[in-house]
Every structure is written in structure tokens, then in C-alpha cells.
């Protein structure tokens, strides 16, 4: 047996297994391993910072939601009114409530406020007011939006008390509980109808002009409402996208309270292809010119609470600065110079932006930047769109979403017989 296994030394050894002496792992491999480990630790540390930032952002989102949904019971701080006045009222009524001659009545030493006190201020802030009004013997005929959907009871009480006591030297005050009562009773009502509307509210109100007679409802009003609420065999109802109250959602715009001429122009632009959107192109294809005017009047005359809230993580302070002052280092003019104080819109050409859906605003600005929306008169918006960065778009959109919606302005209604139609000048 042993003989067979014995190798003939002249033959090659076939059972030989080659092997290597164990060698040291080369140094570079250690270096690479150590470098990878260090990199891993650095990444872990960075990641935990990133997660902290993410958590903070989420926390600020839920704070905003809590602030928006829970009624605040605590008594207001005494100096809160001044800051709230500066943020919400000063852009129209002036920093010291001095008003603007012929356009916006004063809140400082106003005879309307003096007669009505803090409770009348609350009523006006809650519903808004529009139409002929006389304050301190001067005539006004403007529109003030309702703040019901953007200020809570505590804020409105602070503002009303500040205006009553600091600007008019009155003793009368309201408590958040009283504001809550006024809210339940009246927040859904239409804005006060100018001075004549206030007559029932305020005893001893100085003489006021008669209200303008509202335009007679169009004979087709019922058909228009049916079109808006139910659509036709061919087109979906406007309300199914724009909301029952025309408040919009995400990239679908708020229509309520925009100037009818502006709305009609947009619908014509969709029809003629100067403004492009697949859903709206489909809708307008089967609308007649008359239906377009009726629908524009229908939404223009609609007053509804804000359906927007800041949701793009924009920097609200930066947004406010862009809206009020612009940013000349980037060639951005103040939005409100064209879109009106507080973004309530000006006349037929400059649409209201207050309470517009933030995703819609940011999306439109981005489309102007990219050139896919190009229907603003004289190309006014195209340059502005190009100058705004992504962060600025979100900042200004979120700020505008936090403002109270413009009240409907019946004076702007279009005549249905109008045959001349507004068309885009195609820039």
C-alpha cells in the first residue's frame, strides 16, 4: 500500500497544492479602509444635522396648522395690537392710520370709529366694507377685504382695541369672546354696503351717502350658476375644480372676487391659444363669448373666505419685503405697486393676488420665467418672473396666501351685450 502512494521522484508531484505564505495586507488598503470609516462617520454626523433641520421644518408646518385651527382663548397682550395693525392695516390706512386722500379713509381720529367704538371696528374688519362712505366729511368709495379668514379672535380684538384707544382715544374695548360672537353671527355675510350699510350698526353715525343700486341680476343668472356648478354634457363643472366658492386649490386658481374683465381676458386667451393649459383649453372650447362674460361676472361678484394658506415653506418675511418694497438688487419691483395695496387688485388689468393659492402663484411665476405663460400686457410679468429665484417665488407666494381675499366689486361687472372682447396683445 505504501508503495503505491509513494511518488516516483522523477515524475511531477500531482498532489502538490500551491500555496502562498500569508502576506501582510498592503498599507494602502488600510488607508482606504480608514478613510472610508472616517467618511462614514462624517456622513452620519451631517445626516443627523440634516434630520434636525428637517424636523424643525416639519415642526414649523404643524405650528402653523395649530395656529390656524385652534381658537385662542388667552387675553391679548397690550402691545400686540400695534404690531398687528402694522402688519395688516398700515399697508392701506397708513402707518399712523392717516389714510390716503380720496382713496382710503383715516383710522386716526375718524368720526365713524368715534361713533361706533371697538365693536364697530370689529364688525367692519370681520366683514369688510365697500361702497360710498363719508369719513370726516370726505367722500370715499373703495373696497376693504374681510379679515375673518386670516385673523383669529384674539388678533382682531387686539387690533380693534388699538385703533379705538391709541388712534382715537376711546375707552370702549372688545374681548376675544365678544369677537367670537360677532364672528359666528356675521363672518359669512357680504361686506358692509358702504356708509349706508353701517347706519344700522352705529348709532349717531354722521350723514352717509345712499348706497349704489346693485346692478340688476342678469336674466341668465340661473343658467350661469348651473353651468358653473354642474357643467354640461361636454364640460366638467367649474366648481368641481375651482371649488364651490371659487377659492381654488393647489395649482387651480382662486377666481372669487377677481375683476370680471381680467377673468374674461384669461378665458379668451385660453380659447385663442395665447395662454395654454390642457384642462382650461378643453373647458373654454365649448363656451360662447356670452357665456364667458356671464361666468366672469359670476365669479367676479363672488365674495368668499380665503381657501389658501402658506404651504411652500417660503420665508414669509422675505415674501412681505418683495411684495411691499421689491428687491432692486435683483430688479424686482414691489408687487403691490401694480397689484394694489395688500394685493387686492387694481381695476381691470391688474388681478388681485391676496388669498390666491400659493402653488398656483409660484407655478405661474415659474411659467413666466420659462416662457410658457406669456400673455401679460406689455410683457410686464415676464421680466419679473425671470428675476425671481425659486426661494423668492415660494416666499412671495406664501406671503400672498396669508392675506385676506379682496371683496367682490360689483362696479367692475361687464355688460353682457358687450361685443368688443378683450384680447391679449400677445406678448
Amino acid at each position, binding site marked *: 500500500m505504501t508503495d503505491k502512494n509513494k511518488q516516483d521522484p522523477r515524475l511531477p508531484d500531482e498532489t502538490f497544492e500551491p500555496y502562498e505564505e500569508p502576506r501582510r495586507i498592503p498599507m494602502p488598503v488600510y488607508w482606504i479602509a480608514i478613510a472610508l470609516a472616517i467618511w462614514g462617520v462624517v456622513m452620519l454626523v451631517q445626516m443627523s444635522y440634516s434630520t434636525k*433641520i428637517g424636523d424643525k421644518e*416639519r415642526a414649523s*408646518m*404643524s405650528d402653523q396648522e395649530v395656529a390656524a385651527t385652534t381658537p385662542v382663548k388667552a387675553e391679548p397682550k397690550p402691545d400686540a395690537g400695534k404690531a398687528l395693525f402694522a402688519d395688516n392695516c398700515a399697508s392701506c390706512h397708513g402707518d399712523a392710520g392717516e389714510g390716503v386722500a380720496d382713496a382710503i379713509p383715516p383710522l386716526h381720529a375718524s368720526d365713524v370709529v368715534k361713533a361706533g367704538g371697538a365693536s364697530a371696528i370689529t364688525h367692519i374688519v370681520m366683514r369688510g366694507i365697500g361702497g360710498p362712505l363719508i369719513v370726516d366729511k370726505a367722500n370715499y368709495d373703495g373696497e376693504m377685504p374681510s379679515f375673518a379668514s386670516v385673523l383669529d379672535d384674539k388678533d382682531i380684538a387686539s387690533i380693534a382695541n388699538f385703533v379705538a384707544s391709541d388712534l382715537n382715544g376711546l375707552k370702549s374695548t372688545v374681548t376675544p369672546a365678544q369677537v367670537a360672537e360677532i364672528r359666528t353671527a356675521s363672518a359669512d355675510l357680504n361686506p358692509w354696503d358702504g356708509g349706508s350699510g353701517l347706519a344700522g350698526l352705529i348709532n349717531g353715525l354722521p350723514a352717509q351717502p345712499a348706497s349704489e343700486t346693485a346692478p340688476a341680476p342678469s336674466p341668465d343668472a340661473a343658467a350661469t350658476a348651473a353651468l358653473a356648478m354642474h357643467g354640461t354634457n361636454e364640460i366638467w363643472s367649474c366648481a368641481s375644480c375651482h371649488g364651490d366658492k371659487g377659492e381654488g386649490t*393647489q395649482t*387651480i386658481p382662486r377666481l372669487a372676487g377677481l375683476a370680471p374683465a381680467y377673468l374674461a381676458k384669461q378665458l379668451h386667451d385660453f380659447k385663442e391659444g395665447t395662454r395654454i393649459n390642457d384642462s382650461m383649453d378643453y373647458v373654454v372650447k365649448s363656451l360662447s363669448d356670452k357665456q364667458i362674460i356671464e361666468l366672469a361676472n359670476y365669479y367676479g361678484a363672488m365674495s368668499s373666505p380665503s381657501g389658501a394658506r402658506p*404651504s411652500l415653506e417660503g420665508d414669509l418675511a422675505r415674501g412681505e419685503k418683495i411684495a411691499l418694497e421689491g428687491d432692486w438688487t435683483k430688479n424686482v419691483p414691489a408687487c403691490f405697486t401694480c397689484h394694489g395695496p395688500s394685493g387686492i387688485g387694481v381695476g381691470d388689468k391688474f388681478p388681485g393676488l391676496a388669498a390666491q393659492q400659493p*402653488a398656483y402663484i409660484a407655478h405661474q411665476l*415659474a411659467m413666466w420665467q420659462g416662457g410658457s405663460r406669456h400673455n401679460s400686457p406689455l410683457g410686464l410679468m415676464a421680466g419679473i418672473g425671470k428675476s425671481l429665484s425659486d426661494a423668492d417665488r415660494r416666499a412671495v407666494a406664501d406671503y400672498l396666501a396669508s392675506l385676506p381675499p379682496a371683496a367682490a366689486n360689483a362696479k367692475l361687472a361687464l355688460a353682457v351685450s358687450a361685443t368688443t372682447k378683450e384680447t391679449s396683445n400677445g406678448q
Partner: protein
Amino acid sequence: MNRYLPLVIVSLAILSFATLLLVIIPGMQIAKSGASPGLKPYTVAEARGRAVYVSMGCLYCHSQQPRDEAQAPDGERGWGRASVSGDYAYDTPHQLGTMRTGPDLMNIGDRLPSQGWQLTHLYQPRAIASWSIMPAYPYLFAHKAKADPGDVVVKLPPAYAPKTGVIVAKQDALDLVSYLQGMKHDYAPPTDGLRDDGYELMAAQQHNNDAAKASK
């Protein structure tokens, strides 16, 4: 190969370490965080519609995971806020998706709430967007001479409407649209919500740089 035992042990150890870090620990974290507080469970119709969504393979073209502002302009597209794990608590199997041939659908109920639009679009996407490459789903609908009471008639432009009679939605189409209309994750995310926050640090630095430049 005379030292296979240590080789097998080392490779199994590497695999189980990876499984621990990539599967088991995240799984435990997700299980611990539970459903987002604002999330509502599906209604019966929505749950049936979800089953249709899964069986039609909508996931192959549509994701359900909007990204953060730091990563992509999904918010400006109207696709909603960045999702966190708790938003998917009732989704088995989840429909996160990997491809965005079409838009993200996590918040489609918020962006296109119209039942009519959704039905027309499912019946024939080209009736709305001539460039769409989304398949039509005509078998979710029935052609009838006349609509019976309770039928939902699909609104169609003349080019796509049948010569006679009407197109009505079958139950599957109605359920699928209920599911789409219910896709609204518009509540604030839980503060400790889990997601990949990897881009936040970079975005914060960028933001600080911009602010520094602007104040100069």
C-alpha cells in the same frame, strides 16, 4: 479553497449587518412612528379603488412620493409637501413607484378634485391632452343607449363621444376615482416624521449664502 468556513462566516456577517442597518432597524423605526396624526383610513370605496389602482399597474408610471423643496420644485408643481413614512401607514403594498412618466399622484385629490375630469381622463387621456402617452382604460366604462338612473355619464368632447348613446362609468372606474379624489395629504406632517432629509443641510447652507449676498 481550504479556508471556506471563515469566508462563509465573514460574508454572512456582512450580509446580516447590511440587513440589520438597511431593513431591520428602519423597519423598527417606521413601526414605532405609526400613522401620521392627520391621516384618515381609506373608506370602503377608496379601498376598492386602491385595489384597482394596484391591479392596473398605475405605479409603473406614477410615483406617490413628493420630494422636499430642497430636492425638487414638487411643491410649486402642486404635488404637495414632502411625504413622511407615517403617510403610508394604511398602504400595503405601498405604491411609492420608481418612475415619473406621469406626475406624482400623492396629492392628486387636492390638485384635480374633479370627478368628471378624472373619468374623462381615464376613458381617454388624449381627449384632454393630445400629447399624453397614458394608456386609455375604456374597459372600465360601458357604452349604453341611454343612461339608467344612478349612472354616472362621462363628459366627452364630440371627437371622442360615441355617435349614439352614452359612455357610463363602471363601478371599478368610480371606485378608482374615489381613491384618487381621496389622495390628499394636506395636513401638517408629524414633527418626528421619517424621511430622507439628506438635502436639508445643503439647502440651508445655500439659503444662508443667498441671505448673506442679499444683505451685502
